[in-house]
């Protein structure tokens, strides 16, 4: 039979099946969530992990004492492994208990008492496996024992253990572990009593101990944490630090059993990447069962997880959006999550459209294909997306992208009082001319809102409407904010001593320097746009592009003049943004500072110190308003914009409510696998005619060659016969 006919028959027989399915066929129709990740996580040990691409995994596995309510806004903390919110007590220098409403200055330290719920268990793990005599099976392995062990699942036995208060204490001690590098040790050492001294003690002891041996932190007492009973512990904080409660919702304060550290510290484990950084151990709804961060990471339901229910309360529109239909049902809903590594946006996007990823962000390349604006300026999915049942969810991120002025610079910061006043007018003029509405529209596809100050929406201190408008840059007219005119900016510039962009003293044109990290060719248009903004008032902007290290170096030394920066909230408190302009946080000469603009205003500093120790109250809000007002007046930043995240979800994806501060949300999500399977089949029917066409073209293209070959050979044969 002709091979072509055989091929066509084979292809016909294969019809009805999907050929481009990127997952094992056995997984079809199962309750699995498919997700993609671009950057491989570096750390999964909660003491070290601090990146958004890592918390995506760690937040599903580890359980700090608190978590954010999934549906309520503004963001609210609720218990996770604790039975009630921690009780805070204040004490004076003599250790006397103070009343709750006491004056901040008399508080020497605060004590948080945290009681966890009994009956919470860790995921099954070989570190807990014991033999008949109750001795640990895998705590004293030799290299010979490890010969057949290459990954965690190669251990045949696992065990379970109940979560205890000592596990939380152990993890707080791990913040100071001399062989781990917790990014928050410096910060927490300022607050947790004795943590700095504890780190120093551990460093000395670790130097004396063998580098490969298990370093048992339980032997060393940390003054700032106290074991009360099996389920209760206390954390002692210097003075009053109300924001500490938010840290209790971060993976840094998750429990780690000492058995895990003991297990992973054995000789030969690290060479096989069998470490806590690679194989986390938690009490959360999911456990990591496959970790190949170059290709795939798999989370599966933790069989020991129990007791958490879907929230029964939310915001008024949550009922309308069907977000409370699962109220009171046990979590999680999804059995397994497969994260596939997709480094490039194009294949990720196409696989989303084929139904192989359940959700997707929107790259600038595919924005027009996915999103359109309604007559009212509201973003919605295009008709093509609608026909596939895809829906759009948007949320403003608690982040600020800004351009900072280095206040130590003589031109934009000023040295003398008079210079400072002139520089302030210069900054105000620039604030008016850099049109962030245009920036967001051109470079972010409208995904962002121009900032009126440092505090993003959703966080106390952010104000809507007229009262939230920055009066230096905008005027409120006809019910909306209008950017002030170029003429007003020019007037401010003249008052600053630069009429029409010329230095009145020297007669030289005003030249300012914009320090940026080395940019790709794609970013050239952004820099050109920025130059154009400054040119509106005849200021020449020179872009000084350098590599990331040199840029950081300039900022640390206070040598930059104007620079780009950004900040993502750690927690939903205005303190986490206002501290970015707190004088003692100045970055120049202070590596751990976060005030890159080196703004230092005595009154602002004083208000900040007052505000950071206050609980949320109308009085605190008044102080925040005053601080924001001062910042707007001084304009140490061009306030930039708050990015708006757009994400697309397929019709089978349920219970989605964007939550930009909480990452442990997968447990609330729901999938309809049957609908997904049906849609995948509809959308991915193989088109087989191109194979037949390709084979035909190939065969036909050979024909002239064969004919020519025969003709030539015949000619040679004839010549030979003639000869």
């Amino acid at each position, binding site marked *: 039979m002709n091979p072509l006919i055989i091929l066509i028959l084979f292809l016909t027989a294969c019809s009805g099946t999907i050929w*481009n399915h990127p997952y094992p066929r056995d997984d079809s129709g199962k309750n699995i969530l498919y997700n993609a990740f671009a950057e491989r996580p570096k750390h999964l040990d909660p003491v070290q992990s601090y990146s958004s691409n890592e918390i995506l995994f760690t937040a599903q596995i580890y359980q700090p004492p608190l978590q954010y309510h999934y549906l309520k806004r503004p963001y609210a903390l609720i218990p996770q492994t604790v039975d009630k919110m921690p009780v805070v007590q204040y004490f004076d220098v003599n250790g006397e208990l103070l009343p709750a409403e006491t004056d901040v200055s008399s508080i020497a330290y605060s004590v948080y008492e945290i009681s966890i719920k009994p009956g919470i268990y860790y995921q099954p793990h070989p570190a807990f496996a014991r033999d008949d005599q109750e001795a640990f099976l895998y705590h004293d392995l030799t290299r010979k024992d490890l010969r057949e062990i290459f990954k965690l699942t190669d251990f045949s036995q696992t065990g379970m253990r109940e979560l205890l208060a000592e596990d939380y204490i152990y993890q707080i001690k791990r913040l100071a572990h001399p062989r781990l*590098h917790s990014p928050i040790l410096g910060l927490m050492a300022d607050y947790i009593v004795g943590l700095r001294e504890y780190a120093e003690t551990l460093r000395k002891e670790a130097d004396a101990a063998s580098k490969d041996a298990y370093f048992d932190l339980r032997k060393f007492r940390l003054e700032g944490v106290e074991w009360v009973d099996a389920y209760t512990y206390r954390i002692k904080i210097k003075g009053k630090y109300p924001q500490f409660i938010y840290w209790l919702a971060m993976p840094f304060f998750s429990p780690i059993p000492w058995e895990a550290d003991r297990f992973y510290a054995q000789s030969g484990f690290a*060479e096989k990447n069998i470490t806590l950084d690679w194989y986390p151990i938690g009490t959360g709804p999911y456990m990591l069962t496959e970790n190949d961060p170059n290709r795939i990471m798999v989370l599966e339901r933790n069989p020991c997880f129990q007791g958490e229910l879907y929230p029964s309360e939310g915001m008024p529109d949550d009922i309308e959006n069907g977000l409370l239909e699962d109220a009171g049902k046990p979590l999680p809903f999804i059995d397994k999550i497969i994260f596939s590594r997709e480094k490039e946006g194009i294949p990720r996007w196409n696989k989303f459209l084929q139904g192989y990823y359940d959700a997707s962000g929107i790259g600038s390349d595919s924005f027009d294909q996915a999103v359109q604006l309604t007559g009212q300026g509201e973003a919605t999915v295009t008709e093509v997306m609608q026909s596939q049942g895809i829906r759009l969810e948007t949320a403003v991120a608690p982040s600020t992208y800004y351009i900072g002025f280095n206040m130590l610079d003589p031109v934009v910061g000023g040295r003398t009082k008079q210079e400072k006043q002139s520089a302030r007018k210069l900054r105000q003029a620039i604030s008016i001319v850099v049109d962030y509405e245009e920036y967001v529209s051109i470079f972010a596809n409208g995904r962002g809102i121009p900032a009126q100050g440092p505090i993003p929406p959703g966080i106390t201190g952010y104000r809507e409407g007229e009262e939230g408008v920055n009066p230096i840059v905008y005027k409120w007219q006809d019910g909306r904010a209008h950017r002030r005119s170029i003429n007003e900016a020019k007037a401010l510039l003249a008052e600053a001593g630069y009429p029409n962009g010329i230095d009145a003293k020297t007669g030289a044109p005003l030249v300012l320097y914009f320090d940026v990290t080395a940019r790709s060719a794609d970013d050239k248009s952004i820099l050109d746009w920025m130059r154009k903004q400054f040119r509106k008032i005849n200021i020449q902007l020179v872009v000084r592009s350098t590599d990331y*290290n040199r840029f950081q170096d300039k900022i640390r030394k206070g040598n930059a003049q104007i620079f780009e920066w950004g900040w993502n909230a750690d927690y939903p408190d205005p303190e986490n943004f206002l501290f970015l302009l707190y004088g003692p946080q100045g970055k120049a000469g202070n*590596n751990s500072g*976060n005030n890159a603009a080196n703004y230092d205003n005595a009154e602002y500093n004083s208000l900040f110190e007052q505000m950071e120790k206050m609980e949320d109250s109308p009085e605190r809000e008044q102080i925040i308003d005053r601080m924001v007002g001062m910042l707007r007046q001084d304009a140490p930043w061009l306030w930039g914009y708050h990015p708006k995240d757009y994400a697309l979800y397929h019709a089978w994806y349920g219970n989605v409510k964007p939550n930009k501060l909480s990452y442990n949300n997968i447990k609330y999500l729901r999938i309809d696998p049957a609908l997904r399977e049906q849609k995948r089949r509809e959308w991915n029917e*193989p088109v087989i005619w*191109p194979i037949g066409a390709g084979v035909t073209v190939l065969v036909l293209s050979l024909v002239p*060659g064969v004919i*020519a070959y025969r003709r030539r050979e015949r000619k040679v044969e004839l010549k030979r016969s003639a000869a």
Partner: protein
Amino acid sequence: MLNYIIRRVLYAIPILVGVNLITFTLFFVVNTPDDMARMHLGIKYVTDEAIIKWKQERGYDKPLLYNTEAEGAAKLTSTIFFEKSIAMFVFDFGRADDGRDIAHEIKSRMLPSLAIALPVFLLGLLVYITFALVMVFFRMTYIDFWGIVLCVALMSISSLFYIIGGQFLVGKLWHLVPISGYGNGLDAGRFLLLPIIIGVVGSAGANVRWYRTIFLEEMNKEYVRTARAKGLPESIVLFRHVLKNAMIPILTGAVVVIPLLFLGSLIAESFFGIPGLGSYTIEAINSQDFAVVRAMVFLGSLFYIIGLILTDISYTLVDPRIRLG
């Protein structure tokens, strides 16, 4: 030949030391150990103590090349360069800055890289040589002319276009293969089909023209005229005599790249989601991970040297006149 190989291996040592020194210098001109620590620890809340601790832990607290405070030989040995380089010569690559074992990482990534690179190399060689010979066979005819036009067209298109275009047509429109991904064992085949075809087609233009030029040069030699004079069919002349005699330039280009196939391809692996070694060096440069950069540069140099030695050896196999002494 054994003497020759031993001599070449000994020559390789100073080359590898030199490459290592250049890599070290270039890396630390751009990145200081402090920069590396900051990159690793993040930019939020990083203290000076944390940076010092990170450097101490990883041995980056010493001078780079010369330790003025040490005594005797320690002036050279108690340096970052010496301590980080010496272990590599016994293939102890150590740990990446994120604590992961580099040798383990390289081993696990090498196979997927090879799974694309080897078929592309072998299939490519077969296809390019065959097409080049066919074009030479039909030289000065319309087949040769249109073949060259096709080659120039294929050469003029960016490799990225083949990848994106191939994914769009075959994966997205026709749904014949997965757009990207990788499977275990035999399941990997359906993921590799498209990247292999694209790899072969994408390099066809330049390679077919290159082999055609080699064969045309051979066609003008006297032994070809003799073979034709003897009345041998053109196909025999080409596929038996010309091909055999053109092996030296073919091997020069082909054998040297064989060891480098292990190192993978950056763009193809990124777009097709192949978990190979292609992006390992770039990712390490971006994250300022000197341990990985130096290991990969060392491996690259080593493989290149092995490739050159293999090329020399292969000459003796195809040309009995060549003796390695």
